[in-house]
């Protein structure tokens, strides 16, 4: 999704890492981790795609950074299930997982949440939505908020029920559209209550869900991926010149 | 009708075997602990209960208050009767039912309490007779006040524990709208861990009570619009009378 619909997120991740002094490589042939098919139950279709992911990425060295909690969780927690009964593939996947990190996880672990300074470009108040897989599978909770706290000129306000799902859930958002929307409506109500002009989140699917709903409501609240927000703020502070 | 053997065999089959096999022991369940372990644990608990009786009692008062018990602390029988008398007077109690417990018996409620003309004070400390079952129900369902002793208090949860048996009633603490539980210092256990350790020891001694009631406050429900209402099928009001 980042690749074809939200490439600015991918660019931002690279920019942020670059600012932190990281040598970033991009694997040209990458396509997908296979999660969409896996979550829909089509493991026979997900399997070759996932195996291809391992083929490609095990040839790299050093940490692998993923701009999505759900993709990171897929590789780390669900590849073992997808490859059950295939000890070879499973152990190759485990080796890759060991050096695979979600973006926020990577920054917090290797650089700390105060490493990146910034100056807010377009937002006055921001609030943070806790994407489900990042929170529950990767166990990253307050770190992104700490990173936002380092952005000068930005007021970070709390979001009621920040840890309640936004209703995206992949194909759930289409297959069970009215339930997905009902859950989203509650999320958008709390976003409104927070008074923030910007919502920051760490998974593109959630960003689309919330932004798509807010636009339909005629709201001017912007929903943005944290990497994009941090990159934009860093550049605005004169970094990388 | 599926017989026991068939049923168990089916379960074994689901688990991939033909008959049950004694399990390997794990630490998390006390099942594999011996009866002598249970006995020494029970001894420890009894000692601890006695040596820390003040502390445990204070802890019980706090947790019981949170649960909606009305707490009364008294130093002697006279004051205890005074508390009961006050409750009777304020509620215009006409029929009292008491269960058989040592601490309660010593208060001599039947002689010490003074109630209006025509009132009754009955005790379940009596011999069984032909109509016992029906009579006891009738009494319990029509009594205004039930008074019992307890076998333990539990500090963690604000609970009193009663083991119904001969002369110790099930209904006296349940059917009347008001229940007074008489507890003495030294009866309080720290938590559910200790209670069930005591029960397990009783079981290993061949002495497990036929039933046990843990009572932690007035009966309540929140089934209508999530609003908590005190007093549905059990007592609406419960009093903990502490003899210190």
């Amino acid at each position, binding site marked *: 999704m*980042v*690749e*074809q*619909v*939200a490439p600015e997120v991918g660019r931002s991740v*690279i920019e942020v890492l670059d600012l932190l002094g990281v040598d970033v490589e*991009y694997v*040209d042939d990458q396509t*997908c981790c296979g999660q969409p*098919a*896996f*979550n829909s*139950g*089509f*493991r026979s279709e*997900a399997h*070759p795609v996932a195996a291809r992911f391992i083929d490609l990425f095990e040839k790299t060295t050093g940490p692998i950074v993923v701009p999505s909690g759900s993709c990171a969780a897929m590789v780390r927690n669900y590849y073992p299930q997808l490859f059950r009964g295939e000890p070879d593939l499973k152990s190759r996947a485990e080796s890759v997982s060991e050096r695979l990190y979600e973006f926020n996880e990577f920054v917090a672990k290797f650089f700390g949440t105060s490493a990146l300074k910034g100056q807010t470009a377009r937002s006055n108040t921001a609030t943070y939505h806790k994407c*489900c*897989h990042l929170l*529950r599978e990767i166990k990253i909770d307050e770190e992104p908020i700490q990173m936002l706290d380092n952005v000068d000129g930005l007021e970070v306000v709390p979001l009621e029920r920040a840890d309640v*799902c936004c209703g995206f*859930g992949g194909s*759930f958002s*289409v*297959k069970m*559209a*009215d*339930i997905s929307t*009902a859950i*989203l409506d509650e999320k958008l109500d709390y976003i409104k209550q927070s008074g923030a002009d910007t919502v920051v989140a760490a998974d593109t699917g959630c960003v689309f869900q919330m932004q798509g709903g807010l636009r*339909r409501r005629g709201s001017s609240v912007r929903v943005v991926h944290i990497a994009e927000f941090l990159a934009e703020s860093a550049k605005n502070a004169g*970094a990388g010149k | 009708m599926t017989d*026991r053997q068939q049923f168990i065999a*089916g379960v074994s089959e689901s*688990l991939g075997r033909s008959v049950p*096999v*004694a399990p390997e022991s*794990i630490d*998390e*369940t006390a099942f594999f602990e011996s009866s002598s372990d249970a006995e020494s644990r029970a001894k420890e608990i009894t000692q601890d209960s006695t040596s820390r009786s003040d502390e445990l009692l204070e802890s019980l008062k706090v*947790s019981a208050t949170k649960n909606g018990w009305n707490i009364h602390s008294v130093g002697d029988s006279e004051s205890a009767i005074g508390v009961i008398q006050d409750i009777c007077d304020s509620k215009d109690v006409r029929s009292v039912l008491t269960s058989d417990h040592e601490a309660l018996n010593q208060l001599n409620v039947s002689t010490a309490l003074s109630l209006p003309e025509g009132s009754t004070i009955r005790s379940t400390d009596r011999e*069984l007779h032909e109509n016992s079952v029906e009579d006891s129900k009738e009494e319990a369902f029509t009594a205004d006040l039930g008074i019992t002793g307890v076998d333990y208090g539990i500090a963690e949860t*604000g609970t009193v524990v009663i083991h119904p048996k001969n002369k110790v009633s*099930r209904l006296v603490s349940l059917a009347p709208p008001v229940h007074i539980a008489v507890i003495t210092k030294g009866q309080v256990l720290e938590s*559910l861990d200790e209670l069930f350790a005591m*029960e397990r020891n009783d*079981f290993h001694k061949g002495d497990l009570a036929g*039933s046990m*009631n*843990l*009572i*932690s406050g*007035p009966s309540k429900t*929140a*089934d*209508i619009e999530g609003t908590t209402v005190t*007093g*549905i*099928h*059990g007592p609406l009001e419960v009093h903990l009378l502490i003899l210190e």
Partner: protein
Amino acid sequence: MKPVTINFRDKASQTISDDQIQKSLEHVYTGFFKGRLAAASETDNWEALRSKGKAIKDHTIANLDYYLDLLATNVEKAGGKIHFASDAAEARKLIIDLAKEREVKTVIKSKSMVSEEMGLAEAMNDAGFETVETDLGEYIIQLAEETPYHLIAPAVHKSRTEVAKLLDESYQPGSEPPDATELTMMAREQLRDVFRRADMSVTGVNFAVAESGSIALVTNEGNGRMSTSVPRVHVAVMGMEKIVPSIQDLSTMLRILIRSATGQRISTYVTMVNGPRKPDEEEGPEEFHLVVLNNGRDKLLSDVFMREALNCIRCGACLNACPVYRKVGGHAYGWVYPGPIGALVSPVLTGLKDGKNLPNASSLCGACHDACPVKIDIPRMLLELRWRTAEGEKDPKEKSSSITERLVWKSWRIGMMGRKRFDLGARIAGWTLRPFTRNGWISKAPPPVGGWTSSRDFPAVSTRSLKSFVKSMKLGGGK
């Protein structure tokens, strides 16, 4: 109770647009969900208790044959009778026959999900026994002729007005209904008389103890205690998995059950029963019967990937945590068990084809897994069931995906297996959607993704891939 999950979507939609039920479902979050969190945070060793509870249940289920056998021996040793029923019909017959033999007229029922599985109250009423639900929530829905809406609070969806219509003969529709206290007192009076004359009680079992042949009942109202004190015959019904090895295990299990269910440290009453009353007791049942029910649980037990679902202690925490349950309510799930645990158990127990919607009715947010006192990995098992309905992995007859869906994923896979075709696919998608795109956004997409745009906008497919951007990026800024 007969399963009706084929109505899931319709019922879900209805509930979503019912303002009054949506308001009631809020209680599930503000009351039960928050209650559990508060109770957990004030319990120092909460995580250790969860791990212990999980270990006890894992061990018990892995040795279920041994512990059931032991339970049977000990129930009989304590003077009770144990009965085994393969299915609901057998259980019903057993209990009805017993009631007939004992010349029972009035039966009081305490809350029991297993008895709902059996449709017991209805069957007994049909067989001529006055059978009354005594848990207030169950009483209300019995009067309303409905099924439970939640594991712990069966009438959570009912407003005071609706309850008044059921309980209060003098209530005038349109007027302000009595408050909850007044309505509760009405129920107390109505049911008190029933308690008084009950000949037989049917209760559930929160935990059966193999070591001693005892059962433990958890209630707040007092009806469980009435059931074990007043009638001459007490029948306890349990799913075969509701067992723990030792009396001591109850301290762990009660702590995690009750705090997870309502946030209380302990329920008002916990009642242990070890056989019928002793010969020198005035009160209590003369007979104690324990009915152990299979009713399809062997399917879960023999299924190594689904067996964990039998660890469930029926606290309802997963329902309270679930953003889907909190919108669609209990009836949408179409059978006895709603919410995340229902989405697992119902399809397997009633047949996967019937319950195919349920494993898909989840955003896989994982809140249920977090909430479960015994750490049941519900999302893992939902995914397992999705695999079976999509591809018939365990049994080809369970496959219920459409040809279209299978083709979609096949083409997706083909598109993902090489970068060139991946890029080409994106270009095609971009062109296809161009007519629908305004200012970088799509507000009306074609099927099959039209469901999205019914309520949300969707961003346009980018004209450039990330890969092409990367090629032109100037890096080395942080050095």
